């Protein structure tokens, strides 16, 4: 098999057996990237020189443990010391941080080799990566289609074999939905499981760092490294991190799996419903107990999300004011003009729309009716999940209502676009762990099923997902890109 088709654990074996060097491995991925990028456009910045230097150092040290020498990519929302970090926004087009994100730093400390920064919707606001200020990324399965978003660059790069794994962030589905569209594994851990330090904030109470990988074992390996308390992030939780690979025993007998009826209703593609139901039958055949449940407040999740997330974003994005870094309009004659002109030129339409929504929701006289009410809805949604988890170990649903749509198809109407997140948003609102796992093809396009677990019980997600993977071949599906 080609190097670019291998998983982390397979590549590790080759490095450890001295079949290849880290430098050769990195070079081979750069060849792949250089060949694919004109079509795919997943990368915003490629760090070839730095990566090859690191790889040579790794080879010199000659010890290949864990992630040593394994290439990876980061969504361009992770700050990288000395490497441009744009958040796919003009306002940060030339921003070079002096610090690393905790998650990225942990990967590099384990010997991982960063190949570059991946495209996304500007400030993670979008579901197609078309909101990037710089470029649209294509879906490797069909270049006329979107890879999903907001972490579309990360999903596409992993699916196309440009990197063995990548990190993304998920605020309302930004890891799971593109993972579903691109046919890879995407994990959004429990809120608080992975440090947000050095990750540019969209909605702080919802944002969570997560993993894109080719298979479940890789996902567990990466989570092992990035999970855990970070003294620099007060919302990261001080709970012991289990070895997630210890859950990979292929066993689901007696596991109680719920499927919420609300997630198989309105607007969900019939073929997707069928595909996910087949996956559920598979679990049943493997010895799991499956049953239908209700999450009655699901329909309120999306409207509540579109109050909470923009409200927090309106404050988080206020720092981009042209004063200390980022784009500044030097023509401005006074401070107010400097603010409004810098921000007008620096932010794209979707970002502006959400800043306005959030500012409005927090305004005096509207706070109780909007923001406060949304927080109450959030509590109800969490309660719905708690009730189900009193009797079940896991919830399974489709990840997204449709397969990948065509580029340009949904740019006109934000409301239609927001519907892509309808099945993923409730998980963020409740702070739970969610994973998207490939479970079939619909019209030649990959479809993911979503596994939702109890808070900090990523282990059960891994256990179920691995068992499913062992009994199916969907994780071996690769898009045909016509490039060697």
């Amino acid at each position, binding site marked *: 098999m080609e190097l670019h088709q291998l998983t982390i654990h397979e590549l590790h074996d080759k490095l450890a057996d001295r079949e290849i060097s880290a430098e050769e491995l990195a070079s081979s991925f750069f060849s792949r990237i250089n060949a694919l990028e004109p079509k795919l456009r997943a990368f915003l910045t490629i760090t070839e020189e730095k990566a090859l230097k690191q790889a040579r150092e790794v080879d010199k040290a000659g010890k290949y443990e864990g992630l040593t020498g394994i290439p990876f990519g980061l969504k361009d929302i992770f700050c990288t010391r000395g490497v441009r970090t744009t958040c796919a926004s003009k306002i*940060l087009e030339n921003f070079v941080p002096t610090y690393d994100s905790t998650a990225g730093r942990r990967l590099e400390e384990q010997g991982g080799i960063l190949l570059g920064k991946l495209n996304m919707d500007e400030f993670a606001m979008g579901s197609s990566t078309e909101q990037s200020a710089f470029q649209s990324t294509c879906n490797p399965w069909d270049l006329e289609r979107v890879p999903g978003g907001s972490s579309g660059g990360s999903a596409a790069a992993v699916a196309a074999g440009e990197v063995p794994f990548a990190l993304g962030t998920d605020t309302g589905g930004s890891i799971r939905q593109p993972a579903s569209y691109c046919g890879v594994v995407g994990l959004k851990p429990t809120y608080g499981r992975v440090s*947000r330090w*050095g990750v540019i904030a969209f909605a702080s109470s919802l944002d969570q760092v997560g993993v894109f990988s080719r298979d479940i074992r890789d996902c567990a390996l990466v989570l092992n490294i990035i999970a855990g308390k970070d003294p620099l992030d007060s919302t990261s939780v001080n709970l012991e991190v289990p070895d997630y690979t210890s859950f990979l025993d292929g066993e689901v007998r007696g596991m109680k799996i719920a499927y919420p009826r609300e997630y198989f209703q309105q607007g969900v593609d019939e073929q997707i419903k069928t595909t996910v139901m087949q996956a559920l039958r598979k679990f049943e055949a493997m010895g799991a107990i499956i049953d239908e449940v209700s999450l009655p407040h699901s329909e309120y999740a999306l409207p509540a999300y579109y109050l909470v997330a923009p409200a*927090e974003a309106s404050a988080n994005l*206020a720092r981009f004011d042209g004063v*200390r870094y980022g784009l500044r309009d030097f023509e401005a004659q006074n*401070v107010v003009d400097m603010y409004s002109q810098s921000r007008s030129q620096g932010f794209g339409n979707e970002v502006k729309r959400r800043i306005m929504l959030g500012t409005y929701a927090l305004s005096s006289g509207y706070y109780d009716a909007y923001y406060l009410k949304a927080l109450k809805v959030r509590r109800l949604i969490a309660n719905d999940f708690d009730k189900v988890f009193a009797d079940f170990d896991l919830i399974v649903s489709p990840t997204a209502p449709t397969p990948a749509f065509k580029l340009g198809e949904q740019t006109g109407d934000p409301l239609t676009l927001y519907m892509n997140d309808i099945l993923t948003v409730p998980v963020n609102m409740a702070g739970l762990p969610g994973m998207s796992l490939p479970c079939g093809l619909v019209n030649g396009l990959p479809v993911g099923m979503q596994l939702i677990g109890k808070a900090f019980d990523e282990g059960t997600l891994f256990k179920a997902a691995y068992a499913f993977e062992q009994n199916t071949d969907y994780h071996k599906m690769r898009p045909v890109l016509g490039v060697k």
Partner: protein
Amino acid sequence: MGKEFEIVIGLEVHAELKTATKAFCSCSTAFGAEPNTQVCPVCSGFPGMLPVLNKKMVELAIRTGIALNSEIPEICKFDRKNYFYPDLPKAYQISQFDLPVCKGGYLDIEVDGQTKRIGITRAHMEEDAGKLVHQGDITTTPFSLVDLNRSGVPLLEIVSEPDMRSAQEARAYMEKLRSILLFAGVSDCKMQEGSLRCDANVSVRPVGQMEFGTRTETKNLNSFRSLEKSIEYEARRQMEAIEDGEEIVQETRTWDEEKQVTRSMRSKEEAHDYRYFPEPDLPPLKISREWVNTIAAQMPELPEQARRRLVEEYGLPEYDAAIITLNPDYLNFFDQCISSYKDAKLVSNWMMSELNRLLNQNNMEIGECRFKPADLVKILQLIDDGSISGKMAKTVFEEMFNSGQAPELIIKEKGMAQISDESTLINLIDGIIQDNPKVLEDYKNGKEKAFGFFVGQIMKASKGQANPGVVNKLLKERLSSSEM
């Protein structure tokens, strides 16, 4: 004026909490450093940075609450206060909105011999902003520079009830609050360095009216004097406006120190909508009762306790005790003096007259004194044993205040020691008597004035160093002796 008015005053005081590092990062809080040398990506609002709460800030806030008889709730939380200004790097200030660290409380003030209790509404923690440096005036400056050294410095905002009825009461409140903060060791309270700041809410109403009049808020009060003067001015302005049939506009005003007037800054319509919402980067703060109890058990002596001690243990008059307990350094000086000198009232007299006069003259704090309490004690002992006169002592004290030299050294260098040696004085006395036979004759003829003349001449001849008591005694003896 036709009607009689009552002035209603409430104060909002910002005290900088005495921590070594900032509220949410580890930058130093030291005053007076070169601009932007005490900054980091957190306190300059860089992307992806997160606040980490300084425990010391909370401890000092709790200590203040205990000193002000406040309730310390078990849960408090932080909120974002949103507004754009170039000295506010995140474009929001982390503050506390509806669940502050201290609720309720009071302190007692004394005005014209009457004790009055002033209510405290609340005290909340927040971070300071940076500062702007203009070229001359803000309205004409071609550009402004931003210094973020202060950005993120921890503050406690203490809000009083509208319980004060005169500028004098407001000043007394502020002085009392300052002394409590100083004794509690929570703030340096240096108004000129901005570590203690005050805004005054002032309204007036006809005597007998129950509801409050429309209030204005005056900012930029940098001294007790400007607090008092601005309230007097503002109350008079409001009374005159009402007399003239005008309505008072609710607005923010600023004190013009030069012209001694308040000026309108912005009206209620122009007031900011701060769009407060819970700070998602900091979980709600649980304050255990154990912690509060530990802090309470370690409380230093507060002004009220110290005052009682001075009156009851040392028999000082209330007035003296009140002055000495305005400032813990002052009290400490007193305590050190009386640990080796018994006459507390004499120490108090010296502190309140000579020491105070020189401190005021030189615009100095007692902590800046170049001599030690033991040096004052030495002077008092030298008076007691007749080595110097009271008048000399004042000269020695002033010299000691200016140079910091030991009193004995000053006395020696200036040749100021009092001459009490009898044989030396007898020689002097005999010389004067022999030189003035006519006066001696007068004395013998019963002219009392002659005695005074001799004393004067002796003092003059000794350059004032002759011990007057000893001179008196010896002169009487010599004049009545038979040889003369």
